[in-house]
């Protein structure tokens, strides 16, 4: 498989310790497109709540910075340990970490300190990883481990905090010593066997919820995090919005849909009409859905297309929801829910913008301001790239 045909899906799912507002584990991802490098860090701060979150965030931030600039491993680890503030209660400064520095088509490095050891899965098999242990003279009780692996398409790299490894600790039965790496591994292998193409996002969620369910009364007695990195064939999505600038281009525009190998969204009434006319595929708009659809026109259907929507209002709503750090307090319209889900499931998203302007949208007597299509799609591209780590291509038609 060519290098370009691998997409590195990096996801981390977390649950906080019961009663805490923030998670005491932190993670960061970075994609260095130019170098074909992918960085990921997971850190578990001592304790839980704000203090743990602070330790973990400091650790992930420093670790990402050091790995990006290829700083010496031991020096990086020592600097992190020197910098973390000392816990008042336990009189130590402490946060674990696992750092992935993945080079697609080359050698990848993993640096670990005290997190449960990462798992490298290929075809469901737990590959043996050889680790080189290093100790610091200044921090003799801390052990840093370095490993080098060659990750290929189809591989998964998984790491979790001890909220997963120690799940169920003290409970009678099989897990009285905690779920541990073995228990979690077995669960992960079964999950993959049942759904071989399961996304990193879904798998990380499943592991975390399964870990919680081992605990008494399904409680979170620790912060629980699971990071999954999945090297996979990219899942592609094509979104067409707006009529082409010249009507002569309509046929070529519709052909994009006919020839596309992946999911397709048509966003805009005229857009849907053009594709429907050119490909002779009727649009099915269910009027009964209008009342249940929330504050936007309902999703419509067309054969060979995954979702047909209204244009500007829907794209604006979806972009706002994707940009928001906390969920907006307005109910999610049905159509936005579907579109967001399609985006989240995809790795490579192609946004094709027809540039003909509908003058009716510029009428000042309309009760809402309608954004210019190009601007809203630019915002959408930006948020999908920066916040959701998608590969996004935008072109005009």
């Amino acid at each position: 498989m060519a290098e370009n045909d691998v997409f590195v899906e990096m996801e981390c799912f977390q649950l906080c310790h019961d009663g805490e507002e923030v998670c005491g584990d932190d993670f960061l991802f970075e994609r260095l497109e130019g170098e074909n490098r992918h960085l990921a860090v997971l850190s578990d701060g001592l304790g839980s709540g704000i203090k743990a979150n602070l330790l973990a965030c400091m650790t992930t931030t420093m670790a990402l910075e050091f790995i990006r600039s290829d700083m010496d491993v031991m020096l990086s680890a020592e600097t992190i340990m020197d910098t973390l503030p000392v816990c008042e209660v336990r009189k130590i400064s402490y946060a674990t970490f696992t750092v992935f520095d993945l080079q697609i088509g080359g050698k990848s490095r993993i640096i670990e300190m005290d997190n449960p050891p990462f798992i490298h899965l290929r075809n469901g098999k737990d590959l043996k990883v050889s680790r080189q242990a290093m100790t610091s003279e200044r921090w003799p009780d801390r052990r840093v481990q370095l490993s080098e692996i060659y990750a290929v398409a189809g591989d998964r790299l998984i790491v979790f905090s001890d909220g997963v490894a120690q799940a169920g600790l003290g409970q009678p039965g099989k897990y009285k010593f905690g779920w541990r790496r073995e228990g979690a591994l077995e669960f992960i292998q079964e999950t993959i066997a049942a759904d071989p193409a399961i996304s990193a996002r879904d798998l990380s969620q499943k592991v975390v919820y399964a870990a919680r369910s081992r605990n008494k009364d399904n409680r979170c007695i620790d912060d629980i995090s699971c990071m999954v990195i999945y090297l996979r064939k990219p899942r592609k999505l094509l979104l067409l919005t707006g009529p082409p600038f010249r009507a002569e281009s309509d046929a070529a525009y519709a052909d994009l849909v006919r020839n596309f190998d992946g999911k397709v969204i048509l966003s805009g009434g005229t857009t849907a009409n053009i594709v429907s006319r050119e490909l002779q595929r009727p649009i099915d708009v269910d009027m009964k859905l209008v009342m249940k659809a929330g504050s936007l026109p309902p999703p419509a259907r067309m054969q060979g297309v995954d979702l047909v929507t209204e244009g500007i209002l829907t794209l604006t709503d979806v972009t706002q929801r994707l940009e928001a750090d906390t969920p907006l307090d307005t109910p999610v319209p049905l159509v936005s829910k579907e579109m967001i889900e399609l985006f989240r499931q995809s790795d490579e998203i192609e946004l094709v913008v027809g540039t003909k302007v509908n003058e009716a949208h510029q009428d000042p007597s309309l009760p809402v301001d309608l954004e210019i299509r190009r601007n809203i799609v630019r915002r959408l591209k930006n948020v999908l790239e920066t916040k959701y780590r998608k590969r996004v291509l935008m072109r005009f038609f």
Partner: protein
Amino acid sequence: MSDVKKIKVEICLGTTCYVLGSFRLSSLEEQLPPNLKDRVEVVGCACLEVCHDRNYGNAPFVRIGERIVDNATVEKVIEVLQEMVAAGGSNE
């Protein structure tokens, strides 16, 4: 009466029509008087593409058969339908 061709009512759910209230027409089917109930088929439409055409009035638009109705409300659509049925129920 089932063999009589139904009159098709298409409600535009395009951007302009939607923001100007076409969603209110979603209750049209329930509000049809008894004499129209079996004569009319109400469907949604991605866009009727008449909002930028100055030959018509303002959105929201509804197409009844071949006829475009502007400033559409439930009452106005029912009025047009009654006229059509009285004139022989033609789809034209």
